Every structure is written in C-alpha cells, then in structure tokens.
C-alpha cells in the first residue's frame, strides 16, 4: 500500500512537470511571432514589450526560458508563491486575484459536487433497484432532460423564476462566507443547483448502470444464499462495488471544473476562475490564461491522485497491481 502511494505520488510530480512543459511549449514556442508581443496584450507599446521581454527572459534561449518559468512556479516570484507573474494589461499580479477567484470557484464546485452526489447516487441506486418501474422511468427521463438542458438556459430560467418572479433569492454575484454566511448561502444555492442538476443526472445514470451490473454478479447471489437481508445486500455488498467507480469520475470532473464552470459563473455573475479565463481570453491576457491553465492541470493531477489512493483503500485488488 505504502509503495503504491509513493509510486502514484512520484508519477503525479512527473505528470505535473510534463504538463508545465507542455503548457510552456503551447504558450511560448508553438505560436508564430514574437511571444513578447502576444503577452503584452491588446495595446502593446515598445516599452511594454521590452518590459515583457525582460520579465519573462525572452531574450534567453528557450530551455532557459522554461527553466525560469518552472523556477518561478516552484519557488515563487516577487508576488509570492507560486510565481505566476503579472498581467501586463491590468498591471496586477496574477496570484492574489487567482487565490480570490479560486475561492469562489472551489466554493461553487465543492457545494455543487456535494449536492449532485446527494441527488445522483440515491436516484441511481433506487432506479437500479426498481428497474423498469414508473419511478425508474421518471428518474431516467428527468436525468435525460437535465443532461441535455443547456446550463445557461437552466441558469437564466432559474434566475427568472426564483429571483425575478418569486423574489425568494437575492440575485447574482458572490458574497464571502466570512462577511455574511446567510447571504453567501442564498447567493450560492442557485448556482449550486444548476451545476449539480447536470452532474446529478450523469451520476444517476452511471450509478444505475454500475448497480445493475453488480446486481447480477455471482457474489451477490452468494450473499443471498447466505441468508443476508436484502437491506444488507444492497448497502454492504452492492453499493460497495457499485459506487467505487464514481470516485474516479468525481476526481476527473472536479479537476476539469476548476477552470470549466465558465457558463455558470457568467450567468450568476460569480467572479471565479472560469469567468476570469473568459475575460482574459477575450482581452488576450496571456499571463492569466497561462496561470489558470497550469492550475487546472495541477488540479486534475491532484484529484486523480486522491481518487487512485481512495480506490486502493476501497478495493484491495488494486493495491497489488
């Protein structure tokens, strides 16, 4: 087990380094033209371009540039750790805003994930247990609806209903938990719901499929032949194998969502990473785009590391491979 974790950990470090290399190549080496010009943004002046060149070491060789990029990332720069530089357009350091926006996004996806697990898993399990029943068909029909429904439409519709028409909720934007927990919750509940409904629908279908597979396994028949109660068979024998694959799914989804909740954040006016990425892309603000890309890559690697370790704890067969 310890060996397995160490091996996965070393692999993760290697993957993260490779990802930074790949990102570097994509941003600095591959595109045609002067990188300094691209990093300077929409309205470059000769002075700004010179500043960019010096700041990113663009007059040095490419391996040295990457070395500088990696060194700043690992050891930090004048704006702190990790060293992500500054936006040459807004003249702001990337890191403080990244931290602030990451809080918003992580609040959104963690809350959303808890909600979609709380909805998706029970719906999937019950649908599998009552396969073919009206309940199953209604759940899966609803799931199909939410899988196909565009997030922006769902978001705008919910805002219209709960904010504009019913007036139950205070509208868009983000209020930090520290300043007003109640307002924080009432501002987040709709984004959570909208994000969660899509994923809950996916998870319900996956869990239902897994559970149906597990229910026909020989060891479930054995459990029944032992005279266990149906309740115990479902809760202890079927759920264990039926839900374990969800961990991997969740890890990938969480990692990708770190930079991927663009639509939800835009609809609900949440100043998160996705929203930032969108603005940065529109303004050609490469340092910001680069920072978010690296962050997402690291997040995906870390989440899959956690998932693999959890999986090994839950499934003894994995540990010995």
């Amino acid at each position: 087990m310890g060996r397995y974790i160490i091996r996965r950990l070393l692999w993760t470090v290697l993957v993260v380094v490779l990802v930074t290399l790949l990102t570097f190549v994509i941003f600095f080496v591959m595109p045609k033209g002067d990188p300094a010009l691209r990093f300077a943004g929409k309205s470059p002046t000769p002075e700004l371009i010179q500043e960019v060149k010096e700041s990113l070491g663009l007059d040095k060789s490419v391996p040295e540039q990457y070395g500088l990029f990696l060194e700043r990332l690992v050891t930090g720069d004048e704006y702190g750790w990790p060293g992500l530089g500054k936006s040459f357009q807004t003249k702001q350091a990337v890191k403080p805003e990244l931290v602030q926006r990451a809080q918003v996004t992580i609040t959104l996806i963690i809350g959303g994930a808890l909600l979609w697990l709380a909805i998706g898993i029970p719906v999937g399990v019950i649908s599998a247990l009552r396969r073919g029943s009206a309940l199953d068909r209604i759940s899966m029909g609803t799931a199909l609806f939410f899988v196909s429904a565009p997030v922006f439409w769902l978001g705008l519709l919910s805002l219209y209903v709960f904010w504009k028409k019913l007036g139950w909720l205070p509208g868009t934007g983000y209020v930090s938990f520290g300043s007003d927990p109640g307002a924080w919750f009432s501002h987040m509940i709709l984004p959570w719901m909208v994000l969660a409904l899509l994923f809950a629908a996916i998870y319900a279908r996956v869990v239902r499929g897994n559970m149906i597979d597990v229910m026909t396994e020989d060891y479930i028949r054995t459990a029944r032949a032992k005279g266990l109660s149906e309740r115990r068979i479902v809760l202890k024998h079927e759920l264990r194998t039926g839900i374990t694959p969800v961990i991997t799914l969740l890890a990938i989804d969480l990692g990708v969502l770190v930079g991927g909740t663009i639509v939800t954040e835009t609809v609900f006016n949440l100043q998160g990473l996705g929203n930032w990425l969108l603005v940065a892309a529109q303004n050609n603000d490469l340092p910001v785009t680069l920072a978010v890309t690296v962050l997402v890559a690291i997040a995906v690697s870390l989440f899959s590391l956690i998932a693999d370790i959890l999986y090994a704890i839950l499934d003894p067969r994995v540990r010995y491979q």
Partner: protein
Amino acid sequence: MSTESPAPAANGVEPLVAVRNLVKRFPITRGILFQRQIGAVHAVEDLSLSIAPGETLGLVGESGCGKSTTARLMARLLEPTSGSIHFEGEDITHLAGRAMQHVRRRVQIVFQDPYASLNPRQSVGQIIGAPLRIHHVEGDRRKRVQELMEQTGLNPEHYNRYPHEFSGGQRQRIGIARALALNPSLIVCDEPVSALDVSIQAQIVSLLTDLQREHSLTYLFISHDLGVVRHVSDRVAVMYLGRLVELTDRDTLYENPRHPYTAALISAVPHGTGSSGRRRIVLQGDVPSPANPPAGCPFHPRCPKARIISGDPAVVPERCATEVPQAAEITPGHQVACWYPLEPGDDLIAAAEAMAPETVEQAEEAATA
C-alpha cells in the same frame, strides 16, 4: 534445411513439426517510476517433442502447465525465448515476412471458445473465406467455402448467416471449416470441445477424427479433459509447470503411467462407471505459480512417490528438491522426467494420504517461497 537436424519422431520418420529445448518466459516487471524486470513466468521450460505426419499428439496438463503457450509457440503466434521449432524440415523459429506467410498457411488453430473467436459482424461465408482472401487464393471462393461447410457438417445454404444464428457446436464447426480453408498440414486444437455441452463434444471430436482421416491432417490436441485426449490421440504428452513430465503412446500412458504426476492426474479423473470403492490419489495443495516454480523437480512439493522413497511424509529425497530431472527414455518411445519413476507395487494412495495437512502447508510454502 537447417544444419541442426530435428529430433526424430517416435516411429523414426521425419517429423512434421519438432521443437527442441523450447523456452518461453514472460517477464514480470515492477518499479516505482520505470519498470524493470524482477522475474519471469516460466511458461515453457526446456521442452523437446515432435509430431509425425498424420499423427495426433495429445497435450494434457492443468492450468499454468504451459500447454496453451506451447500451442501458440508451435503456431508461431508467440516467439520463443530460446530453443528451436522445425516445421516440415525447415527452421521456423525466427521466420518472418513472406517465408512466415507460407508457414501460416500450413499451420492453423482451432480455438476453445467458439463464441469469442468468430467476428459477430461477419457472415459465415466471410469468416470461412477470410483465410482464402488474406492469402490471395485464386478460384471460386464461394464454392470452396460451401465445400468446406459441407465437409464440416454445416448446411452450405447458411452461407449468408451470422454466428449468432448458430448453436455452440455449429460455431465450433465454423471455426474448424475456417482452419481447413488453406489445406493446412498441422492443426493446433486448443481445448476445442471444452466450452461445449457434453452431447455436442462427441460430435466435434468425431468430426475432427473424420477430417484427419480424409485430409491426412496432423493434430496437436490440447485439452484438460483426459478422456477426450485418450480418445483422439496416438501419443500423449503430459506437462506440469512448463515442463514435459511424460510422453508415450496413449495406452501405455493411461494404463502404465510411470511419472507420479501422470498417475495422480489420471486417477483424479472421475471414471463415470459408477463403480464404488475405487480410490483415487488425491494430490495435496495447488499447482505452484509458474512465476515461482519450486527448485529441483517442479512436482516434488506434491509428489507422493518422493515420500515413498524417503519413507517420511515430510521429507523428499535431496535430488528431487535440488536437481531438475530431464525427460529421458526409460523404454523405447516412453519418456519420463523423474528421478524415481513408478514401479509396480508403489502405493501412491497411501503415500498421498500420509502427507498430513502440516506437510501440505510445508509443500505450499516451499512452492511459494
């Protein structure tokens, strides 16, 4: 012709296929970041045997004994780690390209699972005709395929049907027809009836023996079913943990086995005669892992005869535990790889029973240490 002459077959005629000192090891790798080899599965170890033209050589053994690997080596689906394979007098051990194409036409395989070995999206005609297409055989392919279907007991009118429309037995007939398409000389039958219902097995076995007579085919017939092997084979080879332990003509093997493992294996098979009071030799423990074969004779941790020699259920003769016995002729045409082959009067049943549970445990530890 290679400079090294292939091993002669049993009856002195030049063998159709001969393997000599064949070894196949699959590497086991492990490592934190980069994989390095830490061991090997000893699938086939130092195997020498030959098959005469028109002969059926039965190959029996339990899981992990290397019989399927041997089949794949002989059909050159795998490349041996060392040793040589001669086919029709030619060294094909490392043959490739066009020369190998020629050998491929002459050696065919019939697989165990007729459900998995047929492409469900191809019609029967396409499946059986595929070898003709691949090897660019000229002539009326449809006619040839229908001829093959007739020979294998399929209705030629079912040319355009798909595998799922056939029963298990019929699907195995399709597999056999496909193997026959290029007029091979050697057919490797890898557990061809194991997946079939009892009443169907006899149909397929009879078909294979009829086809052998009509087309003067040579079979390597691999099975864990000792009854089927006795029925179809001229000679039978027994393998254990990658090594040949005994090889002789079928009646001698079944009636007068000289290797303790062969004796135990045959005795373990239920006879189905309903005769009460027959006692079988029940070997203790499991077959050790081929990734970690015991030192010396691979069978020594479970061998009852070794206990007869030592006179103590917990002890085996030193030679058994340290030196690997080579297959040697003890009478003409009868090879046995054992330091102490069975003699009349050896009571293996009593010896097997004397191996008390504690010794079984020791045997297992010795095997897995």
